[in-house]
């Protein structure tokens, strides 16, 4: 598992709808903020890059210092963004694919307004489990 990883889901309208600090490293508030700043900045790159490829997994698209941003864009243009320092691309890809399935389940909930925050604790638990498995 990566020592530092921050996972975010950003909606089509650029609103973060889910965020999770997945790293096993010591949690510091400053670092968490910095992670969000990096991911926020990467959206600029994603928005251009997403249209250049048909693949959903955009691989590592950005980096700052030692942290790499990997992005997965769903068909609905929801972006899964992972900030990590490992180079395990396959693991990241599997992680994204599994999270995508979870996300689709959330979307199927008729009470969920697409684009609003994902508050499901079940989703959170599953994502963290996936992170332990793949990252």
């Amino acid at each position, binding site marked *: 598992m990566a020592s530092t990883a921050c996972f975010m889901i950003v*909606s089509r*309208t*650029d*609103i*973060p709808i889910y965020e999770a600090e997945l790293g096993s490293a010591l949690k510091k508030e400053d670092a*968490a*903020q910095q992670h*969000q*700043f*990096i991911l*926020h*900045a*990467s*959206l*600029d*790159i994603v928005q*251009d*890059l997403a249209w*250049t490829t048909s693949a959903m997994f955009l691989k590592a698209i*950005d*980096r*700052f*210092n030692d942290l790499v941003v990997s992005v997965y864009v769903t068909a609905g243009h929801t972006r899964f963004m992972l900030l990590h320092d490992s180079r395990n691309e396959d693991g990241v890809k599997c992680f994204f694919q599994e999270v995508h399935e979870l996300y689709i389940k959330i979307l199927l909930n008729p009470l969920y*307004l697409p*684009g*609003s*925050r994902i508050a499901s604790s079940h989703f959170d638990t599953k994502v963290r489990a996936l992170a332990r498995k793949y990252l």
Partner: protein
Amino acid sequence: MEPDVSIESMCTIRIAVIPIGQISPSLFREYASLLTVHSKIDLSSISSFYTEHQKSPFTHQPWDSGCLRFKFILGGSPPSPWEDFQSNRKILSVIGIFHCPSSPDLDSVNDQFSIVCKAYNSSLAQKCFGFCPGDEQLKDGNRRQDNLNLFPPADRRTLEMHMHNMMQDIAASLLMEFEKWVLKAESAGTIVKTPLDSQASLSSEEVIKAKKRRLGRAQKTIGDYCLLAGSPVDANAHYNTALELARLTGDFFWYAGALEGSVCALMMDRIGHRDPVLEDEVKYRYNSVIVHYRKSFTQDNSQRVSPVSFELEATLRLARFLCRREQAKDVVELLTNAADGAKSLIDATDRLVLYIEIARLYARLGYERKAAFFSRQVAQLYLQQDNRFAAVSALQVLAISTKAYRVESKASSARDSLPENGPSPVDGGKLNPNSIVSLFESQWSTLQMVVLREILQSAVRAGDPLAAWSAAARLLRSYYPLITPTGQNGLATALTNSAARLPSGTRSADPALPFIRLHSFPISPPEMDIVKRNSGKEDWWAGSAPSGPFIYTPFSKGDTDNNSKQELIWVVGEPVQVLVELANPCGFDLVVDSIYLSVPTGNFDAFPISVTLTSNSSKVIALSGIPTSVGPITVPGCIVHCFGVITEHLFRDVDNLLLGAAQGLVLSDPFRSSGSATLRNVSVPNVSVVSSLPLLVSHVVGGDGAVILYEGEIRDVCISLANAGTVPVEQAHISLSGKNQDAVISIAYENLKSALPLKPGAEITLPVTIRAWQHTTVDFDTAAGRSGGLGRQSKDGTSPMLMIHYAGPLGSNAESTAENTILPPGRRLVVPLNVCVSQGLSFVKARMLSMEIPANVGENLPKPPPLLDNVTESSSGSNRIERLVKKDPYRGTWGLRFLELELSNPTDVVFDISVSVQLENTTNEDNSTDQEPAEYGYPKTTIDRDSSARVLIPLEHFKLPVLDASFFIKEPLVDGTSSGRNSSFSEKHAKAELNACIKNLISRIKVRWESGRNNTGELNIKDAMRAALQTSVMDVLLPDPLTFAFRLARDGLEDDLQSSATEEGSVLAHDMTPMEVLVRNNTKELIKMNLSITCRDVAGENCLEGPNATVLWAGVLSGITLEVPPLQEIKHPFSLYFLVPGEYSLVAGSVINDANEILRARARSDSPTEPIFCQGPPVHVRVCGAP
């Protein structure tokens, strides 16, 4: 690292611009701005200043198209250790600027300037410019031969032209210096060094290597000068040589430098032509440059100097060159690499410059968020430096980044988005979920809070209280749910501290607390209602929108298209109120120093009030003001003076926020504490102000409290109307509304009419007569509970209301174009007639009593009831009945019927009852003077408190004279049968007729009461009477078909004029008494019958027959067959001989043969075969003994 590097910066000549002597910074900037416009001097323009001393080394100088580029460095800069490596880093010229009035001594200026110039030993040309010289100085300056130049005072254009000449001079002298330098370098060779070259003594091997390298480096430097001199072809030639030499000697650093120069030369040569081939070439060469810079990195001197900055600069140069949307991927790659390089930079300033450049390039690419990210990095680096200027810089940089993080101050966002005034997504109440989401697009609350906190921190450090206030306000307002109460308190303190350092009355664009939303626009109180005037109509108020509590009524007309928004009318000079709701969701008590309505249209005087909101509370307050001039008014928000700063709070912002809260998109609903979880959608009406209107105020004379009336009481209420406005009332109309409208008997409308126009201040009194209605217990309770209040209390009560529609004068030009002008609206005054009905006399029950007063047999006949056609008889005055019951025992008998009313008096006062009956005057056809129906009164009956009493109402004079079929069938039958005589008449008709009759009857009976001094009224007992009469109305109204009467026919006289009162009607015993029975047919049909007469004694025994008969008789007494023609009488004579004196009664009875329907109906016989028996009342005969 240097800021603002680009490929072209290789060919710019640096000129230091230095202030000399006393000169204010602003003046220095102004003078310098004259210089900086001349950053490019064409070679063709300097030829006049240029003299070729030797043969120019720049053989390919493009004199016609080339130019020299300058970069002015204000204030100069320290010499760079790398200036040998890149000659464009050298300060090649120094320009001093001085302000003559503050530096009068030119010699000292000259001295100072030369001292300054000494610091720049690379400088090849020096000039010192003086501005605004005095006459003395000018004279002095003209004589001098040094570098001082004075600019006589002139306008800016002239000065710029002078400056242009000066720059051309400088350019020419620099060009000549370059030539000199290049010639010297070519011949003698020059030693150029960089910090990279080790300072340690060189080993022999290295010395040889250095000698070899020197040539290449010299060539590179010459190339640099060629570039600066604006000769790219020459430069390119020298660079090529240098590249060869450097490659041979493995001098990677210089190789990369020469390569960079060659790219610049290439660009210069192809200036203005940009094509993909060139781009690829540049990209290829620069990648090579970057690679070679990287190669030149050696471990041994990495501690001291590093070529990393050159690598990064080269990266940035390439990125800047490529910086276009199409190349975004490459640029991002380059910039990401550059950002990675930041770690290896030793100097913090270098890192700062690097981040600034990266941010600028990202911004140029349109990557706002990336730019904001690096701006924030820059700001953090600034904040690490612990001084005020760094903090100011940090604040400025952060302010730039706020837009990307969407926390920008309203002041800056208003500047940016002023032209676009797009429709807000909440328009019209229709909402698309997506558009709501887009309202909160920026929900990176963590980031936003961090950025705002950093802005606050840097603003505090930079000493910018307004920026600090604004940041704290934004932080508190938007993110209070994420901040602990302690943090909220801290922010509040920060706000107060910042405000303390601001001048009072400072305005900020960013509102802090409280949250304000529109609660409602209260509709004007009913006494000030405004009604649109409908021009050209007599009843101008009709058809105007109802200003009742319902916005939509199903009864309004179908013009819904323009009714989408509520209209509200305010009047100039009349105070109005708007209710707003304030909320303080934070954990501290909030003191709002003043709050008032913000009206940008300017025609409104708002009254400020101050409010204190406790923590986590909300409050609805009324903000008032006075409209000052006619026109539309918009109230978009409030102006709030809170935390020492004045801010404008817009309702729309909070509405959006609440919308988001309802959707779960924003953090929290600040109005949660007010308890209304649902989203309130207050429609903002279109408010318009109209000119002054009259204003009627009303009060009830004798106190505005409810008038307490007993049921049925009639009272005059005087309403005083006064015009409290400034405009006279010219039209007025009174109508009634509400419940119990029929309680108002009369309104003295003429009083009002005659008083028009009612001048301002005038007052009139309007008497209104009210009759109290039926008392209900509920009414009593509510009326008692509310009797103290005014206004609306009776709106939902049972009292009727007077609606007075009134209006001022028409517009001045109304007579010319009546249709087009908009009339000033009218007003409606609703005057509730506050009547509290208390229980009065209560009615217990009513019943019919019938009694028969037996008549005595005398010589007179009872007067037959007047016939309709017998006009002459009934018109005589003596015929009139003067009293209700005229009891004359000798005039025959009547079946009297009484209506007995039982009344009880539960109150604690005494009531006097008087009954009167109104008689229809049958004679009013020919006697027109006698119009008034006769009325007959009874003596008063007094009912004491808590007592009951019965009142008898004789129902006497209602009988119809003739029993007629027309009574039953007044109209032809609906089914069209030609004659309804034999057909059964419709029961429906009969019933309707009956009801009409009963109603008529009832309406003529009035029961009035009096109590105390001035309480009079009328009992409302119609229903009770109707119920009582329902069953026996036939008996009351209809005459019997046959009436019988007995008469003494003693003298054989048939006239009834004899009227001896004493012995009248007495019959002697033992005497043959001739008598007559008169049978009268009251129908219009011939009646055949069997008449029989019986006589009974006191005991009721039949005296005529049986074993002990005491009366002898002569004539026929039974089975007399008679035919009575319609409306005629028949006499039947007979004689009786009484044996025993005493009282006897004679009864005549008859069996009607072949009775028709009417008779049957009258007799209430069911079967058609049943004989109809008709009996007259008994008639008394007193038989006296023999004298």
